[in-house]
């Protein structure tokens, strides 16, 4: 059963520490006087958190159904709230991705942020802890708290340390996210009034009334779609990405967007399976549109960060499309693509930030031809660009291939529609790569990437290559969970077709 809880057997509460160590560690920043010590402290703290989270991977037993490393405590009994944390094959890779990117986010801001450094590091640490919490929380209110607690630190990261239009971008980010998540709150309250509990496994066991499923699905879906972001609510993303400082863009692209697709996997597909199946065509169409639309927008950009931002829209379209094909290939592809996009796009944003530190411009024209001065940079940019366009041998190839094959299994036309999307990716990525590395150079010489920047990029690059040739470590983690999910959804297909008939009748009347 999906709802089995296997309690934490490690010597320490691993999920609590992963989540709350960075959050509590923020307090110590108040007492550190020098910026440099604050940076070192944050780096050490994020590294410690990463090391603490590693046993999650090594001690995880993929064969076990349900959630592992569970921690359960009563919290607000009067309202049925409990502190329930746990991971399964779906959330585990996301938590590891979060903790893995923590030290990189601190490292890449080492020189970039020189103004209000301590506050910046505090925001980074806060977001890191909160994001881990989002993936670990199994109580709906706990999940919602983490989900929303994200807003203020992320807003500050964009609005204080961002580019010229940072306040506009920050406010847009908050308003879009909140507009989506108020529906989530209403849905959570509704679920509680029916089941009397906020605990995800209990809600799953008790089931929800069929008449509510469609509404609940829509409420959940709106909240998650804004975060993904799906067309047409994607417009906050380019604004936020372009204005955010490097670390902010990396957090946004690599982890924050995945909170949306994770939410769909965790809540939409399991709690409202019939509605998911009956409404899937809409989601598939929107995702397919995002792939092509995002790709075409990306092709037209001259701002490197904007280009990567729109490519994210397209890539996340692959993820949501893979998820809503409801077959194992699609779901595997979607999950892999979430991780690969985190690594690849995170790397690309890091490199955009490095360019900006050197030339103080994100324009393709200003940065053109810089490859001749920066061979190391050229290597990494080449690798991440290839991975971004899903070149065989890089991580994204596996994910995108599985997504496309899942789409073909679902529907021939759907699969065919994705091919131009994949082609577009090659076009916009090569366009950027060629301009930056071999374009006409009018810029004075710049320095190649230094040791710190190598340290940032190398772990990402290594993982991109490893997962490109050998994705089975992740697949092994998530396969059982995904197989259960596919089974769960398939068992609701008959119910879904009735629901779709009713829905169509209601719409036509």
């Amino acid at each position, binding site marked *: 059963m999906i709802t089995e809880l296997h309690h934490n057997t490690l010597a320490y509460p691993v999920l609590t520490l992963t989540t709350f160590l960075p959050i509590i560690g923020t307090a110590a920043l108040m007492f550190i006087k020098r910026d440099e010590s604050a940076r070192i402290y944050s780096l050490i703290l994020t590294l410690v958190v990463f090391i603490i989270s590693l046993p999650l991977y090594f001690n995880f037993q993929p064969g076990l159904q349900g959630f592992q490393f569970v921690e359960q405590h009563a*919290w*607000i*009994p*009067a*309202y049925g709230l409990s502190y329930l944390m746990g991971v399964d094959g779906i959330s585990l890779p996301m938590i590891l991705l979060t903790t893995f990117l923590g030290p990189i986010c601190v490292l890449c801001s080492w020189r970039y942020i020189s103004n209000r450094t301590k*506050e910046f590091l505090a925001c980074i640490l806060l977001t890191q802890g909160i994001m881990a919490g989002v993936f670990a929380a199994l109580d709906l*209110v706990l999940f*919602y*708290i*983490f989900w*929303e*607690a994200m*807003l*203020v630190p992320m*807003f*500050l990261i964009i*609005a*204080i340390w961002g580019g010229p239009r940072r*306040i506009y971008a*920050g*406010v847009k980010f*908050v*308003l879009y996210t*909140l*507009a989506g998540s*108020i*529906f989530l*709150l*209403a849905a959570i*309250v*509704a679920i*509680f*009034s029916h089941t009397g509990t906020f605990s995800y496994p209990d809600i799953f066991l008790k089931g929800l009334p069929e008449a509510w499923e469609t509404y609940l699905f829509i409420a959940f879906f709106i909240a998650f779609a804004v975060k993904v972001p799906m067309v047409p609510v994607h417009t906050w993303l380019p604004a936020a990405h372009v204005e955010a400082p490097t670390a902010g863009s990396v957090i946004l692209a690599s982890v924050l967007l995945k909170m949306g697709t994770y939410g769909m996997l965790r809540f939409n597909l399991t709690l409202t399976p019939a509605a998911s199946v009956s409404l899937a065509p809409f989601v598939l169409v929107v995702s397919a549109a995002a792939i092509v639309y995002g790709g075409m927008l990306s092709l037209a950009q001259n701002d490197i960060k904007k280009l990567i931002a729109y490519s994210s829209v397209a890539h996340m379209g692959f993820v949501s499309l893979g998820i809503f094909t409801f077959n194992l290939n699609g779901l595997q592809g979607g999950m892999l693509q979430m991780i690969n996009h985190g690594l690849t796009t995170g790397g690309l944003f890091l490199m955009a930030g490095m360019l900006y530190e050197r030339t103080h411009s994100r324009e393709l024209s200003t940065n053109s031809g810089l490859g001749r001065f920066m061979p190391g940079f050229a290597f990494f940019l080449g690798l991440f660009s290839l991975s971004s366009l899903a070149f065989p041998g890089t991580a994204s190839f596996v994910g995108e291939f599985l997504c496309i094959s899942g789409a073909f299994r679902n529907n021939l036309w759907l699969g065919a529609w994705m091919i131009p999307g994949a082609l577009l990716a090659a076009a916009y990525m090569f366009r950027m790569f060629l301009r930056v590395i071999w374009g006409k150079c009018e810029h004075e010489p710049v320095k190649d990437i230094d040791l710190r920047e190598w340290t940032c990029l190398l772990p990402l690059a290594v993982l991109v290559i490893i997962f490109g040739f050998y994705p089975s470590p992740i697949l092994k983690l998530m396969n059982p969970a995904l197989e259960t999910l596919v089974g769960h959804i398939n068992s609701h297909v008959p119910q879904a077709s009735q629901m779709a008939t009713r829905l169509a009748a209601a719409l036509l009347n």
Partner: protein
Amino acid sequence: MLSLLPETTLAAAALFFFFKNLELFKLESKKAVLLFGLAAASASVIGLFFHGEFFNGAYRVDNFSRFFTLLISFAYMIACIIFTRLKECDQSRVDEFFFFTSMAALGLVMAVGSVELMSMFIALEVSSYPMYIITTFRKGLGRQFEASVKYIIFGAVSTALMLYGISYIYGLSGSTFLVDIASTLPPKLGNPMAALGVLLFMGGLGYKLAAFPFHFWAPDVYSGAASEVTTFIAALPKITATALLIRIAHLFTGIEIVPLTISVLAVLSMTAGNLMALGQTGLKRLLAYSAVSHAGFILVGLIALGNGGAQAAMFYASVYALMSLAAFMVAVEASGRDPVDIPIERLKGLWRKSPVMAVMLTIALASLAGLPPTAGFAGKLFLLISAWKAGFEWVVIAGVINTFIGIYYYLKVIKTCLVSDGRENGFAPAPFYLKAASVVMAATMILLGIFPNTLLDMAGSAFRALVM
């Protein structure tokens, strides 16, 4: 006599400042007010353990009244801490100011303990008159007199409504004692007079709470009065109003039209307050309209009294008082140079001048906006859950939509105080005790959001005392 300790302490404070005014004491007023604030808070904690009945059963000290006494006394203490920074208030009338605020706090505490309609009414008036007067205690010629007149006129009208309501209730039940009303009224609940009486009575309290449509005084009084005065008016009367609303609504739970009317008013209050707050450029006016919208949220608790709504409303009222005091603590620091309202722009660069205050204001505003993990979120969640349980789904939907509208203007202030740079807006450096108080308040707002159990349990036992 220990059971009347909180009341005695506040009365002693009032007397002290009355005689201080006659220059009988040498103690510095600002030190004295801090001392009395601490004394009142400690007295209310001691008072938690003693119960009793006084004045022929017109005044009852039980869990319910002591819960609210505790809230009022702590709010009074925080207000006293803020009072030590008098900036806009007329310095020559410091003692009068402290006298009237202690008097008003005493009236508010007495109103909470009264279980007889007339003593309730008189206690409320005891609290109202000092507030009408202190509204004018502002340096220079601003809008304080206009504000005070508005306050008095709206106050008089709502007092009349309340008395009219009491006359109906008395006419139906033949008594002004709540105990008697509770025993004689139930068979007559179907009588439209009962609904009219209770709604009129609640109208009078809605004025104290600044709920729609009794909110028109709020923006003018908030911005016209000195910031210290607004601090007091914005927080303390709301606690008492919530207490009395729960007391009265609980007596009339059998009438269907009452929760329905309150739910409509609650939604209108939230929406009207939020929409009008959107365009404000003055900090105090913005907080006034935000108060209107929060009054709506407190009213939500009343429509679901039996479904945990009472506890939720009590929790929310306490949290709201705290958030409001926190916001006004910063407002007082920022005030002193404006003819009427404090422009929000004044907060520019607050993070540079006083990072502690900037962070506390941010947490207070996030809490007002209902963002987790603050206490404001927990309170809203409890209110919405109880409203849904009571079958008011549409109120929940309206509530979440209003949460969304609210974030925009709170974010505007957060942006100004934490992001915008402004070197020229010199804030006087805050003294240590004020910084310490802001750290404690900020921590409380977060901790109450994460661990609301203690306060919720207290509210629960307070409500049970009422039911029994």
